[in-house]
């Protein structure tokens, strides 16, 4: 019989919101993990911080608003997201521009976060 263990999991999001379907797939995965009460945290790296932008006009390109989906994560006990501090600065963004409370991390802190998880899913 296989032993089911509780794993500390990290989803690393790396895509811009609408360039491909991957960002949406990653969001679906985050929601599913939340719904299955997994021990999961999210880290938005590089241009993926744009997924968190408030006020995305996704309906103009016939897509679901990724920001709105991400804003529902607290319903699944995912209360905040880690973000790449350098990427936020590069895009001139601050916490108030985003749909979720965030914790900005520098490169060293990102490395420690990745090292501390059991499973890392990178999309």
């Amino acid at each position: 019989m296989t032993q089911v263990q509780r794993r500390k999991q990290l989803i690393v999001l790396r895509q811009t919101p609408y360039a491909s379907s991957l960002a949406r797939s990653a969001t679906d995965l985050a929601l599913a993990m939340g719904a299955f009460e997994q021990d999961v945290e999210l880290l938005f790296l590089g241009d993926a911080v744009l997924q968190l932008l408030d006020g995305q006009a996704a309906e103009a390109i016939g897509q679901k608003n990724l920001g709105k989906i991400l804003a529902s994560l607290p319903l699944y006990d995912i209360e905040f997201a880690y973000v790449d501090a350098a990427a936020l600065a590069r895009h001139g963004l601050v916490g108030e521009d985003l749909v979720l409370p965030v914790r900005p991390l520098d490169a060293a802190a990102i490395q420690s976060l990745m090292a501390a998880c059991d499973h890392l899913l990178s999309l």
Partner: protein
Amino acid sequence: MIYSLLVLSSPISGHGSRHALHFAEAAIARGHQVNRVFFLDAGAGTGNGNAVLPQDEGDISGAWRGLASEHGLELVLCISSALKRGMLDASEAERYEKAGAMVCEEFSIAGLGQLIDAGSTAERLLTFGG
């Protein structure tokens, strides 16, 4: 060691799908176990039984099927990724009144819970592509 794999890449574009396949082959050859391979996003195309490849190009989907028959690893396509790409099995084709099933029988179609379940029993969960 028990591994679960998450494959994000299309079988006909880029390297992710081939890397995943070769990893699975190498892990099994060394006596490790691959409990489940979950195909998400463009990876869902791997289950396409209607793909016709030139004879001199590697058939990644066929290689996965061979590995599954020989070693019993589970091949699972994410249902939402699969449906968007027209990858239906017999029951989904009937449900949505579409002409025919095109997913090979070695692959099943299921929700993301199957990935989460695989991850909870695996010691390593590896992502390929994306």
